[in-house]
């Protein structure tokens, strides 16, 4: 570098005053606090979505998910042999596929930040931790939503083959999307707790399996034998599977809606807590 270059380096451009210049920002007002929170959330959401589609991760996930869902629906579920113009067989496999695929999508969300040291960057942004958590969750959920959206040719196919109850199918899609949100929220939180992608994946699949299998009749009867029918019914109420059954039949249950929203909020809360706790250590 020449002396002349050195001298020109850092020559200030005439810039408009930013909101954070030394003289005009001692404290954020409520409105600027709200705007800044939303800005941080959308920035994190955009950054994560970009990270998914910059690497092959989202493409591989969506492709394998679609292949697996097709294989389960047509080979194991014998979709055509059922000879019914509905998608109940197709939706039957959603919880079990989410159980494996959504932890794979979400395991990197916090664990990678911790590994790469970029958590330090995030936690020194002027944003509440929950906004970072929600931004990351929404990005993972958006990938799940994209995968679900790409299954709509199945919906078109059953309309071509017969006259399905489209309102029931739309409801099942909505509940499946909400259920996916529950798995993503859980997996993202466990990514923050574990701090390691592999451990996060194993933890999320195991936890997801417990909260899915709790709705199986086999598990319910086992719990009933050991602890009585009230315990069995209580256990069933905490299962992803239980609350998806009614939606598969085209029935909208308020408690199912509340369950999935509650699961998402609960895991987002735990996620915020676990990320915040890293500040103390």
């Amino acid at each position: 570098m020449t002396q002349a270059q050195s001298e020109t380096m850092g020559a200030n451009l005439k810039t408009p005053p930013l909101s954070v210049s030394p003289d005009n920002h001692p404290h954020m007002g409520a409105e600027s606090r709200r705007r800044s929170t939303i800005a941080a959330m959308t920035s994190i959401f955009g950054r994560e979505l970009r990270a998914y589609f910059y690497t092959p991760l989202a493409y591989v996930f969506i492709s394998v998910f679609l292949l697996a869902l097709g294989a389960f629906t047509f080979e194991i579920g014998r979709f055509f042999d059922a000879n019914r113009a509905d998608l109940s067989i197709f939706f039957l496999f959603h919880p079990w596929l989410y159980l494996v695929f959504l932890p794979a999508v979400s395991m990197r969300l916090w664990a990678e930040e911790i590994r790469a040291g970029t958590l330090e960057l995030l936690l020194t942004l002027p944003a509440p931790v929950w906004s970072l958590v929600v931004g990351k969750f929404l990005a993972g959920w958006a990938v799940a939503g994209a995968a679900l959206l790409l299954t709509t040719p199945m919906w078109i196919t059953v309309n071509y083959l017969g006259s399905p109850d489209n309102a029931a199918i739309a409801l099942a899609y909505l509940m499946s999307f909400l259920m996916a949100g529950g798995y993503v929220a859980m997996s993202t939180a466990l990514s923050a707790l574990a701090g390691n992608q592999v451990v996060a994946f194993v933890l999320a699949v195991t936890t997801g399996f417990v909260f899915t299998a709790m709705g199986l009749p086999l598990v319910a009867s086992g719990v009933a034998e050991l602890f009585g029918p009230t315990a069995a019914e209580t256990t069933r109420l905490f299962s992803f599977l239980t609350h998806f059954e009614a939606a598969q039949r085209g029935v909208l249950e308020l408690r199912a809606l509340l369950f999935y929203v509650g699961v998402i909020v609960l895991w987002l809360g735990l996620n915020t807590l676990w990320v915040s706790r890293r500040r103390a250590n």
Partner: protein
Amino acid sequence: MDLLKVDRLVKRFGAGANLKHAVRGVSFTVPRGEVLAFLGPNGAGKSTTMRMVTGYLEPDSGDALIAGASITQERRDAQLSLGYLAEGAPLYGDLTARAFLIFLAGAHGLTKSQTRWALDRVIQDARIDKVIDRPIETLSKGYKRRVGLAGALIHDPPVLVLDEPTDGLDPNQKQAVRQLIARMSEDKAILISTHQLDEVSAMCHRAVVIDGGSIVADGAPAELIRQSGADTLEGAFQTLTREEIIS
């Protein structure tokens, strides 16, 4: 006016027999217009102190005021006034330098037009125009450091905390960063951690030496040399920190 006021910060890690006092009641101030060097051997508590000042770590006790806002009570206000270059400059390798800076601008709540101006400013300040559209993971260590520095400056904060800002830079780049820091110091308070003592005399008005989690010296570089009885700042550093180790 003290833009940065560090008040009796304490941090302990571990528990029981593994309890380690990383920082023991560190206090200092940095007024507007001053560049303060934060010196100390590895493991002395420099990075832990900086992490508490920036809100990345919660102090066990004590506080830091950034432009008047408490990092423990008004963290967001404090962090809005702060630009931080972390040790090793952690960055998102998959993003281009431009996308990374836009991400940071957005996360700091800058509008689109403010972001455009801020980008032009920091690209020129950090001299990263040649690599601005390249993925960060393909950049040299020096350029990564400069992108990190640009990120710390994107919202034009009044307080800068820079952990080894010239680490990985070649001599020309180091000189350029020193000039940039000198220019910025006119209206900012700047805290710099460095192991390169020649930089301290070149660009810092004052130096604080920390060892074993406590401050062992605080003064202008020339004053530290005089107090320690050494001939150079390096000698003063060795004297000050060696004495602590022995005691």
